[in-house]
């Protein structure tokens, strides 16, 4: 059985590879390469997989899931500039792919044992672009 929880955070970023020319950056990242940055309302969906506990009837306490998502992702990233304020994005380009991967890394240790396992992380950068990561 799967259970999902959603959270939102608003952040700015720049998608730019210093090894590439301005023109190459423009061609690869489009307006995302704007040197002054730009922002999104990110929507994060975290899905856990497991069997409901026979006593509580729950796969995982959703309040605890909310707390982990807030502590590991929303608090450090909301209303921040990812490149300047949220490591590792001082070194890693904060594409939606890389932000999704980083969120997985931050969340996974909290579900390393117990009934519920981290199944997927979905991150919407806009309503029409999103990334799914299932680990591995």
């Amino acid at each position, binding site marked *: 059985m799967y259970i999902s929880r959603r959270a939102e955070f608003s952040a700015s970023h720049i998608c730019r590879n210093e090894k590439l020319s301005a023109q190459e950056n423009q061609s*690869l990242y489009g307006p995302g390469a704007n040197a002054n940055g730009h922002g999104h309302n990110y929507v994060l969906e975290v899905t856990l997989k497991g069997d409901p506990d026979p006593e509580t009837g729950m796969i995982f306490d959703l309040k605890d899931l909310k707390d982990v998502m807030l502590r590991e992702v929303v608090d450090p990233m909301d209303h921040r500039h990812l490149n300047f304020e949220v490591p590792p994005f001082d070194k890693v*380009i904060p594409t939606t*792919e*890389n932000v999704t991967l980083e969120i997985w890394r931050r969340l996974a240790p909290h579900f390393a044992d117990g009934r519920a396992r981290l199944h997927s992380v979905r991150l919407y950068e806009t*309503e*029409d*672009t*999103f*990334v799914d990561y*299932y680990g591995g």
Partner: protein
Amino acid sequence: MVRVTRNYRFSASHRLHLANRSDEENQRLFGKCNNPHGHGHNYVLGVTVEGPIDASTGVAVDQGKLDEFVYREIIALFDHTYINMDVEPLREVPATAENIAFVIERRLQAAWPWTQPRLAHIRVEETKRNVIELDVINFHV
């Protein structure tokens, strides 16, 4: 591996009708969709690709190139058309969202220009309440 999805939109009309069935049967099968003059939708097409994140660029897919490809292969063909008459593979089979999804999958697969990422999933939203999902299991070679 990550999966990246982009949504695209096209507006088109269609009619669901089987020439070899009676009017009553068509009406029973397809309801309002059988209206003789057709009707339209704002379709939302979700294209999901799967691949590794390029270590240097940080992306799994060049979104500009994917957009260009999907516009050329699909949107240009479907947008502002009467699907039953204007989209060749759907002249002979009913233009249900299911068949539209199959046609889109076949066209994308046939012209897919990349080894990585591969085409992984297609989603056709006819209305908010009518959505078809298609897993692409034949890997591109």
